[in-house]
């Protein structure tokens, strides 16, 4: 849970800036964002399309830095390294120290290999000496843990032979197979039906509690964030605008942008549609941090 403020953060992002394009005319995407996640914490980064939430996740995984026309400054402390620099250090940690779950599980899995082979690769990235038999046994156990009825059959299937909900379970099982310190979930289940999405979130919650894995949840859906996260960062056009615990943010939203978002969401309890602008200079007002939620000052790395 949250508030274990004495433990060193698993992930600490400091003044992260990102721009795309050539050096003389770069297009800024992130304007210096800072955030942190402590061991076992579930932290959400919530914002609309184009706000910079997914690129933040990709930078934390080291997936953007090595591309052309990408300019990164600031730092991402994770597992004793600065992931903002990209390169082999973070690449080596992907799939075992840090894992990711994507929006559409069926397209995230390789359609040309059976689940069995993909699962072996994942387990091998955590333990190079693992034998095929041993890997298969661990894969079966992992699939049973995510309530896949016939793990052996699932291992012998291609992703396109399984339903979206099944593939999502396979993805979660793979992501957690090496007991990563950090799981990054980018819009998990958004492409799936609501009942399957709810199952996905429950499953993620249950398993990460069990393994003590920290979670960075990337989402545009405030409902999903409220259900899942301990703490929330709201991002708007490349800047964090509000940061608080889930209770603080939903019971007492203070930033004009957060308030607008919460008001604009249709409610199952009714109440009609509010008259709100799509954009407003007010949405760009400075960061609001709720009590007890600042960025830690202790030394990292």
């Amino acid at each position, binding site marked *: 849970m949250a508030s274990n403020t004495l433990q060193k953060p698993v992930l600490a992002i400091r003044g992260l800036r990102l721009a795309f394009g050539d050096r003389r005319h770069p297009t800024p995407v992130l304007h210096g964002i800072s955030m942190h996640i402590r061991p076992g914490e579930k932290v959400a980064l919530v914002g*609309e*399309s184009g706000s910079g939430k997914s690129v933040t996740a990709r930078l934390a995984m080291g997936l953007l830095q090595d591309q052309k026309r990408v300019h990164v400054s600031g730092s991402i402390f994770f597992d004793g390294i600065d992931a903002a620099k990209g390169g082999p250090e973070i690449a080596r940690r992907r799939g075992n120290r840090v894992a990711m779950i994507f929006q559409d599980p069926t397209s995230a899995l390789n359609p040309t290999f059976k689940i069995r082979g993909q699962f072996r690769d994942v387990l091998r990235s955590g333990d190079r000496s693992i034998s095929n038999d041993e890997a298969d046994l661990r894969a079966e156990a992992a699939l049973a843990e995510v309530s896949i009825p016939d793990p052996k059959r699932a291992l012998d299937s291609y992703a396109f032979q399984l339903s979206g909900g099944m593939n999502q379970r396979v993805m979660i099982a793979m992501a957690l197979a090496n007991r990563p310190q950090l799981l990054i979930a980018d819009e998990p289940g958004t492409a799936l*039906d*609501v*009942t399957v*999405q*709810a199952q996905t*979130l429950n499953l993620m919650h249950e398993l990460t509690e069990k393994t003590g894995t920290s979670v960075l949840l990337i989402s*545009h*859906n*405030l*409902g*999903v964030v*409220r*259900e899942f996260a301990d703490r929330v960062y709201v991002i708007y056009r490349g800047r964090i605008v509000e940061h608080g615990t889930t209770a603080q943010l*939903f019971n007492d939203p203070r930033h004009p942008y957060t308030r*607008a*978002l*919460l008001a*604009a*969401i*249709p*409610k*199952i*309890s*009714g*109440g*009609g*549609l*509010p*008259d*709100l*602008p*799509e*954009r407003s200079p007010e949405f760009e007002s400075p960061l609001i941090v709720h009590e007890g939620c600042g960025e830690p000052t202790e030394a990292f790395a």
Partner: protein
Amino acid sequence: MTGNAPILELDRLGKVFSADGHSVAALDDVSLAFTRGECHAIVGESGSGKTTLANLVLGLIGATSGEIRFDGATLGRSRTREQKRAIQLVQQNPLSALNPRRSVGASIRLPLDVHDLGRRSERDARVASLLQEVGLEPEHARRSPRGLSGGQRQRIAIARALACEPELLVLDEPTSALDVLVQARVLQLLQRLRQERGLTYLFITHDLAVVRAIADRVSVFQKGRLVETGPVETLFSDPKSAYTRELIGAIPVVTEAEAALRAAIRAGAPVPAGAE
């Protein structure tokens, strides 16, 4: 508005898709009436048959059994120009619904030319007034849809559908691809247009909160079957089917009031009126 003869009636409508000896009933014996001037939401998860229903109503596919009546007349696959004009579609993704090589103005003008509506010399002025009606500027006519935001593009798709002076709009997840602030504006626009023009909406969505905000009636589909239909208030105060309860129970919510409503529905208790 109630007591009107229905504008659209589905009478024991069925659609079976078959291939390689397998057949699937995408829509199974569905009878439903749509009252003129109402927003009637069709809700269900993937595979529930909601898109098949839309395609049948639009005449894009033919029914296997049963009948569709519009304004009392039977609608088959071959339709008169007038019948085609009266039912228009707004899709989920406006970028793929609009031709990127055609200007916004040309896209909206095309249905006017096809259906030969109004005088030729007045059609550009008509395009300008349609753009204003959906909250855009006449100058947008010269732009390409590529350079516009998702919300602006959806407004253009709506303007194009309105160009035909339709009576029924089939809205297939019209705001699911939009950000919440943009979604709220587009839903407001749809609400206003329905009132001003007396339109009837067949509103397909998977989002029950959107249904609550915009619909008068709602029909819930599961695997091609109609499981529940009724006024929107009843669906949220006392859902009859277990499947509807399951759907409402799975919605991620943002307020305490919503969480309380959802908890009551999960528990199977009717929600007292005014307990919002």
